[in-house]
């Protein structure tokens, strides 16, 4: 048991160092950060010409919406009849500008996540095939290294490396957005990264590492990564559409959801994220078992 654990720890350590040395994870994270910052800057140029809602308050059957004029920066009020329009109750509970800025950041992060998952597939799919290309596989076969430890070591090392990179990107992006948009709802922002961005990337990376196990060379692994891109897009779309968009945008017009408080809405958004992930986790486990069986079969041949 101790040998297996020390092998596992060693694999994680050295594979993670190798990931950084190959610069795959660094390139991925820089790419992700630059993409997100670029999109934010592009949207920001449009942001300055759009009137912004400063606050919402209810007065009987009327909703009073205070808006800031983009051109003059002056505030003006609009009175909306509640019986004719569905205005979610939580609009009045929150600092509207802060919530708006936070969700504007999420509007950029959602497509950026898709870009990240597209990039993860070909970039990380070479992790296991490289051992065969550099003839390390033969060396590993001479050692008492169980195949489960080998596969898990590869997977966890990539996960830890990616996690470090994504946390750094999250912090840097948060600082940038806060400097441009003003205050953010930090707790929601942190949860967005912890419960949506991070697990989504890790699941995508899991497939990118495990599926190309059968490839014999880096080029073969990259080709497998190319065919995994639709899966990455599918994971991103499923998670984003099933949680964030459904809860925050579409349920606004759902009468049954009007009285949901802001914290409840956000909490439900993140709990739905888990539901969206569930099908991908056992599938990854099944793929892992199939690849483990493949490695055993190949060794026994």
């Amino acid at each position, binding site marked *: 048991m101790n040998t297996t654990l020390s092998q596992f720890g060693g694999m994680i350590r050295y594979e993670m160092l*190798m990931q950084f*040395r*190959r610069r795959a994870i660094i*390139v991925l994270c820089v790419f992700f950060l630059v993409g997100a910052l670029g999109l934010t800057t*592009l949207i920001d*140029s449009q942001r300055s010409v759009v009137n912004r809602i400063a606050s919402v308050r209810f007065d009987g059957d009327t909703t009073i919406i205070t808006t800031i004029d983009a051109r003059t920066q002056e505030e003006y009020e609009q009175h909306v009849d509640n019986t004719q329009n569905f205005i979610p109750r939580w609009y009045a509970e929150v600092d509207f500008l802060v919530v708006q800025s936070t969700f504007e950041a999420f509007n950029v992060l959602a*497509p950026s996540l898709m*870009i990240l998952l*597209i*990039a993860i597939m*070909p*970039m990380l*799919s*070479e992790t296991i095939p*490289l051992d065969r*290309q*550099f003839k390390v596989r033969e060396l590993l076969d001479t050692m008492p290294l169980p195949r489960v430890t080998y596969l898990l070591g590869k997977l966890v090392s990539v996960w830890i490396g990616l996690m470090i990179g994504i946390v750094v990107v999250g912090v840097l992006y948060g600082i940038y957005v806060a400097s441009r948009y003003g205050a953010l709802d930090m707790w929601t922002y942190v949860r967005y990264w912890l419960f949506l961005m991070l697990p989504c990337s890790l699941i995508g990376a899991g497939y990118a590492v495990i599926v190309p196990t059968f490839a014999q*060379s*880096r*080029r073969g692994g*990259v*080709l497998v*990564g*190319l065919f995994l*891109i639709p899966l990455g897009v599918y994971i991103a779309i499923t998670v984003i559409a099933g949680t964030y968009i459904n809860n925050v945008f579409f349920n606004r017009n759902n009468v049954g959801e009007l009285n949901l408080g802001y914290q409840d809405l956000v909490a439900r958004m993140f709990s739905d994220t888990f539901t969206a992930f569930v099908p991908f986790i056992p599938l990854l486990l099944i793929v892992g078992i199939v690849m483990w069986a493949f490695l055993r079969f190949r060794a026994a041949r």
Partner: protein
Amino acid sequence: MVFLALMAQARDPVAMSIGFSAVAGVGSLVAGVQAALMFAPADEPALELLLASPRPAAYLLLERLIIVVGLNTLVAVLGAVFFTRLFPTDTFVDQLVRWFAPMIAMTGLGMWISIITRRSNYGMLIVILFSGAMLFGGAYVLIELFELGWLIVMYPPLDVLTPDHYLINRVFLTAFGLVLIALTFWHIREPEHLIGAAHTAV
């Protein structure tokens, strides 16, 4: 291409937005990916042997380039025939003119990135993301925000660009691709440089 054509006939919004540029878009994307996989020094087996032989490495690249361009031309021709049967308003020549410039540009981009980074996955990634960016809002951003419509690689909105701008766009893209292809050949002229004697690459 067939899938996009059928989707466009079914009035799918994404396929409609790509419209007649489907042959150009898909053809150039595939060409770019193939070009990225064509020659990556870090993945090339027995490169030292090849470089020690009297046959220059550029021949290898040239042979593969001919195969990639030839295969893509064949696919684009078939796609153009199929499209012109479904959408008779667009001629066969229109489709090929629309496809040629981005195909050269993406081929050059894929080849060049793979050579300078020494790895095909970087070239492939840039080509895919570039195509994706062009498909989802790239043309809008270039036209509306920067007034650089002539830089659009794929899916140029023909109702927005003037014929002059379109011509400049095609010439620019072809020149861009050819320059990158030439740079790639220039980059592999030095055997030691190509092997990576000056630096370690894994």
